[in-house]
């Protein structure tokens, strides 16, 4: 694996039955490439949490994943409402998920934290009323 591989996914709005398809696909791809299981798991968790956030809060969006020999970069972009207070959103247990989402088992206020914990770098760029772009990197070496 010497070249970069780029994968693009559309995350559908409000469709929980399809959330996880993009992260599942990336997970399968990394496994086939022989990437270490703990790295694969971290990418899968970080990306799924991001995907779910896009479905819950942002009417879907796009995810671009670039796999290089050194790292896996995930760029999650949406045109949702944006995050008012990023520091607060990163507090464990803080959640703005509505009741119907909580009934599905989400809304524990751990999503962004799981993303941060499982990536080596995470940058959140968000403007209220415009959208959010989250860039995460997981190092392979």
């Amino acid at each position, binding site marked *: 694996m010497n070249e970069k591989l780029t994968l693009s996914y559309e995350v559908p709005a409000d469709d929980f039955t399809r959330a996880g398809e993009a992260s599942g696909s990336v997970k399968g791809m990394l496994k086939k490439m022989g990437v270490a299981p703990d790295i694969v798991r971290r990418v899968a968790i970080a990306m799924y949490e991001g995907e779910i956030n896009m479905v819950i809060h942002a009417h879907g969006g796009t995810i671009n994943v670039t796999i290089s020999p050194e790292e896996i970069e995930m760029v999650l972009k949406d045109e949702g409402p944006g995050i008012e207070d990023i520091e607060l959103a990163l507090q464990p247990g803080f959640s703005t998920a509505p009741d119907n989402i909580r009934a599905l*088992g989400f809304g524990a206020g751990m999503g962004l934290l799981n993303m941060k914990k499982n990536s080596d770098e995470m940058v959140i760029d968000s403007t209220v009323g415009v959208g959010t772009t989250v860039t995460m990197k997981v190092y392979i070496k």
Partner: protein
Amino acid sequence: MTVKEFINLGIFEIVSEGSNPDRKITVPYCCDLLSIAMGRMPAGAAWVTVMSNVNTLAVASLTDAALIILAEGSVMSDEAVSKAKEKGITVLAAKLPVFEAALRVYKELNA
């Protein structure tokens, strides 16, 4: 203990047999909040939960759980059962409460 050996004990009802019978079960794990399970569930876990929607399947798959055990008589929709079968995920079910179901797993793993 492998998934197949565990299923063969006949303690729980089979909802979806799964496609990885030789997978080793490492530990029972209990949690219904998907993001907490996502962040903390160890690989190879027998995940005991009452949460039975398709997202439970996604979390189990992404975290490399060995199997899902639906406790408290929790029932999966036909759509979710089809998805579990399609993805090869082992799902069992029990009327037992979460703690007792997990305790049965623990006892069998440590027998």
